[in-house]
């Protein structure tokens, strides 16, 4: 019972974090990819039209690619070279779309979309808005007050939880009857019946919950609440800002991020001219013990948008616990590679 109580604690914490007054509208999944797939596959039928952006992660583009083969029309609304969605073009493209899937924070550039504006456009056209907050939750504000109908989240990034957790938060007035369940099975409810429950949250939570993972997610959200999102953002801007400035001063290096002063999720993506990104990443890891990721970051679409296809970028992701000393060490390491 205590373990089940922790799951409920986590459900309540997630609801509060995303501004939902009803913990029953929180659904836990294995990860955010599963959560997004649940909405896309559960809601879209042949003949439907869905709109998304050119900054999406494969968690969105791949299921949409599959759905396209099954007769769903997929519209990609363009973003500029910094990753910002062209809002007027989006407004022009949205007519007749049943669903809009929007990446809130880019995992490549850290660009943050204006969900308030986007939700107004969606509302005017009667389009359901699903926000992918995998990269932004716990770093920049995002909640149902943005006008999103559904928010998809992961536990192991900005929310400081562990891998294997994620889920969806539904707006109170959203009709979940519009989304069928992707998996059916044991829920501990209606056990005498073979039909799967149609009530929340059991409808989307077939099978055993990841209790230990959700305990970790609860600890992460509690920490964020105690420290405060503003302080987290301040700390991240301090270290990521220094890192981005330092790298951009290195001869031949280029950083891909939003304009100064714009919201940013503090990922530092960069290239060095005429240099393979894999070589940079391997050098930093093997010679300086610096973890980073090179290539496409499961978002080749975003790399095409910002002009880094096919080489990709090297991405450094300073966190709330990163220190300025670590940043200087990293900058020196990149300089040494360049020399």
């Amino acid at each position: 019972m205590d373990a089940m109580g922790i799951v409920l604690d986590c459900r309540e914490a997630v609801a509060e974090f995303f501004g939902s007054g009803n913990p029953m509208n929180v659904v836990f999944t294995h990860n955010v990819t599963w959560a997004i797939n649940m909405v896309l596959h559960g809601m879209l039928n042949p003949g439907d039209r869905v709109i998304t952006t050119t900054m999406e992660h494969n968690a969105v583009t791949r299921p949409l690619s599959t759905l396209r083969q099954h007769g769903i029309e997929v519209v990609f609304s363009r973003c500029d070279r910094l990753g910002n969605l062209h809002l007027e073009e989006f407004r022009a493209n949205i007519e007749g779309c049943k669903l809009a899937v929007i990446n809130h924070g880019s995992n490549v550039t850290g660009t943050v979309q204006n969900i308030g504006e986007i939700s107004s456009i969606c509302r005017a056209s009667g389009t359901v808005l699903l926000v992918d907050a995998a990269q932004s939750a716990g770093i920049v504000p995002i909640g149902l007050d943005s006008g999103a109908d559904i928010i998809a989240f992961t536990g192991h990034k900005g929310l400081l939880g562990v891998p294997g957790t994620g889920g969806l938060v539904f707006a109170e007035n959203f009709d979940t009857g519009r989304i069928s369940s992707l998996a059916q099975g044991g829920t501990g409810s209606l056990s005498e019946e073979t039909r799967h429950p149609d009530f929340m949250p059991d409808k989307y939570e077939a099978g055993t919950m990841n209790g230990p993972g959700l305990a970790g997610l609860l600890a992460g959200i509690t920490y964020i609440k105690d420290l405060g999102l503003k302080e987290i953002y301040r700390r991240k801007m301090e270290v990521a800002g220094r890192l981005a400035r330092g790298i951009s001063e290195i001869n031949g290096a280029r950083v891909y991020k939003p304009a100064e002063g714009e919201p940013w999720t503090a990922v530092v993506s960069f290239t060095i001219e005429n240099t393979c990104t894999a070589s940079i990443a391997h050098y930093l890891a093997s010679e300086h013990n610096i973890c980073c990721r090179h290539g496409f970051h499961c978002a080749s679409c975003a790399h095409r948008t910002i002009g880094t296809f096919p080489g990709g970028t090297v991405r450094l992701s300073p966190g709330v616990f990163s220190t300025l000393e670590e940043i200087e060490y990293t900058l020196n390491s990149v300089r040494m590679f360049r020399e």
Partner: protein
Amino acid sequence: MSDHLYMIFKSMTHVLTAERAARKRGIACRMVPIPRNLSTDCGMCISVRAEDGDAFLEIIKERGLLPDRVEEHSGPGPGSRCYSS
């Protein structure tokens, strides 16, 4: 006259939420396995003293919850002898 009530909800999340809300407000209740004669469900329900039934229902109503069923019971049964708030 019944001794206590079994509050039967549709899901475990509802059971846990209702029990927590009631306990916070000092209602003596506990989660118990649903008696097999009431439901073939394999879940849990909440056992509450009969005299606390109305207060319990009021409290959970504030949380937007209502039990699917309320069953009266007298004599031995799950949770019939042990209550704590």
